[in-house]
């Protein structure tokens, strides 16, 4: 009983830390975008966490953890009712209570839509985004999650000597699931006015780099819970190793991205430094409990290089991702997932192939579902604000509000 209490307290702390990540995402997104769209972005973030939690209560949790099911899609059961042993040490090996289970997973659920929010910032209709969020968080994320964390077909996939896809805390299940949708939506939405001139990418500087910096440090703190809680108990060795690998990968990702971007562009770009930290964090997430400190540093460092080139690639193929969400969450999410087959305790050719199959399954599922949702919205209610609204700012038109009424200087 005592151990259950200790475990459960740790898991509730982690739940709170993951909740706090929404502050980090909000700060990062508004920091890297223009002041005229601040209310709009904050509104989306608040919408995601509130509606996301309710959706997870209504259908998400049961859809993601259906118990015995066909391995592909669980049945729709509304509401949550704890099982008889849900508050005892019998449940989940005494790692946490059933209530904690719900809330911890619920905090994760909203993250996938938050990733999309940043990528589509400054030009997407808020109504279309809300509908997308409801469908993606309510159905797509839980179904995708059930394949692995819910005991679905990927968790028992066999290839050679290896059994089971592995994604410790969600490089794929959370970050790539959001990242694929971000990619599809950004493509269907088109670039912001002024982002590409004569085919060349233009800089549209964010309005508050201090907020972006605070956001990244808050996200890093939140990751203590994201990865630390994914141990699913307060197991001393597993939790402490996980925090070590998480932090080392974040640090390595930041430093290497900073060096790479400095060599390429001859300036010390803080935003790349920040994206590098996030890349390292996303990269280590799939195997945070499987890696040695050295593996973690390598995984983070490679993520740091990937970030810089991925941001450049996204620009090159004329996709407009104001906050670098595709580079951070999709590219580094895929990298982290594959890294489980290359580094650490599970490394091996067979495991690598399983990881590759897993990545491909999620790619197909997320690309198809997000394409269907966004394309349907595009053809019906429309997904993009008018040119005038975009130029004057979504705050003024979608919300009729001003984020900083006392500071109106730049009308760009």
């Amino acid at each position, binding site marked *: 009983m005592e151990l259950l209490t200790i475990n459960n307290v740790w898991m509730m702390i982690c739940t709170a830390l993951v909740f706090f990540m929404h502050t980090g995402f909000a700060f990062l997104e508004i920091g890297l975008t223009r002041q005229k769209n601040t209310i709009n972005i904050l509104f989306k973030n608040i919408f995601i966490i509130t509606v996301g939690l309710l959706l997870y209560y209504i259908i998400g949790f049961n859809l993601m953890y259906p118990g015995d099911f066909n391995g592909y899609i669980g049945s729709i059961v509304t509401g949550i009712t704890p099982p008889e042993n849900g508050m005892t040490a019998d449940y989940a090996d005494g790692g946490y209570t059933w209530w904690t289970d719900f809330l911890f997973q619920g905090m994760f659920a909203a993250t996938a839509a938050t990733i999309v929010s940043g990528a589509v910032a400054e030009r997407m209709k808020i109504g279309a985004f809300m509908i997308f969020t409801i469908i993606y968080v309510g159905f797509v994320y839980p179904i995708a999650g059930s394949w692995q964390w819910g005991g679905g077909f990927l968790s028992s996939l066999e290839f050679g000597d290896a059994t089971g896809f592995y994604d410790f805390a969600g490089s794929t299940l959370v970050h790539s699931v959001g990242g694929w949708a971000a990619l599809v939506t950004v493509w269907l939405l088109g670039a912001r006015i002024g982002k590409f001139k004569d085919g060349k*990418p*233009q*800089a*549209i*500087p964010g309005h508050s780099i201090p907020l972006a910096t605070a956001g990244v440090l808050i996200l890093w703190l939140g990751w203590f819970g994201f990865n630390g809680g994914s141990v699913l108990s307060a197991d001393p060795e597993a939790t402490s190793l996980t925090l070590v690998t998480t932090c080392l990968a974040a640090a390595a990702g930041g430093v290497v991205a900073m060096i790479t*971007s400095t060599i*390429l*562009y*001859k*300036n010390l*770009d803080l*935003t*790349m430094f920040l994206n590098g930290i996030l890349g390292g964090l996303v990269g280590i997430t799939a195997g945070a409990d499987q890696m040695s400190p050295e593996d973690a540093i390598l995984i983070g460092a490679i993520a740091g290089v990937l970030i*810089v080139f991925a*941001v*450049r690639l996204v*620009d090159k193929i004329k996709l407009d991702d104001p906050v*670098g969400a595709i580079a951070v969450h999709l590219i580094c999410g895929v990298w982290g997932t594959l890294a489980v087959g290359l580094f650490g305790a599970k490394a091996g050719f067979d495991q690598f192939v399983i990881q590759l199959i897993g990545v491909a399954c999620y790619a197909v599922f997320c690309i198809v579902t997000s394409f269907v949702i966004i394309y349907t919205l595009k053809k019906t209610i429309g997904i993009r604000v008018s040119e005038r609204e975009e130029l004057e700012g979504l705050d003024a038109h979608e919300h009729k509000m001003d984020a900083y009424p006392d500071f109106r200087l730049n009308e760009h």
Partner: protein
Amino acid sequence: MKKVEAIIRKSKFSKVKKALHEVGVNFFSYWDVTGLGNEKEGHVYRGVSYSTSDIQRRYLSIVVNDDFEEVTIKAILDAASTGEVGDGKIFVSQVDEVYRIRTGEKGGNTLK
């Protein structure tokens, strides 16, 4: 009476202020301005180079009696110069009349 208006680098403001005090010019107004000029400021943001032609400067507006015109201009010229492009400009114009609002009196005495 003359109005001496100067657009200077913000970084030179305290030096110019001190130089003006030294020649006895103790009252003037100033504000920050954004302008366009020959100078371009190079920036890089997330791997994309760009330059802004909007230049941040400080604008001084000084009204002095005719006998102060020359020392005022010299003080600014000496204090605000770096020798690089972008040091700014000085404009001199005639002022027809000056009133002191508190007393209603007018003329050069109001500037002392």
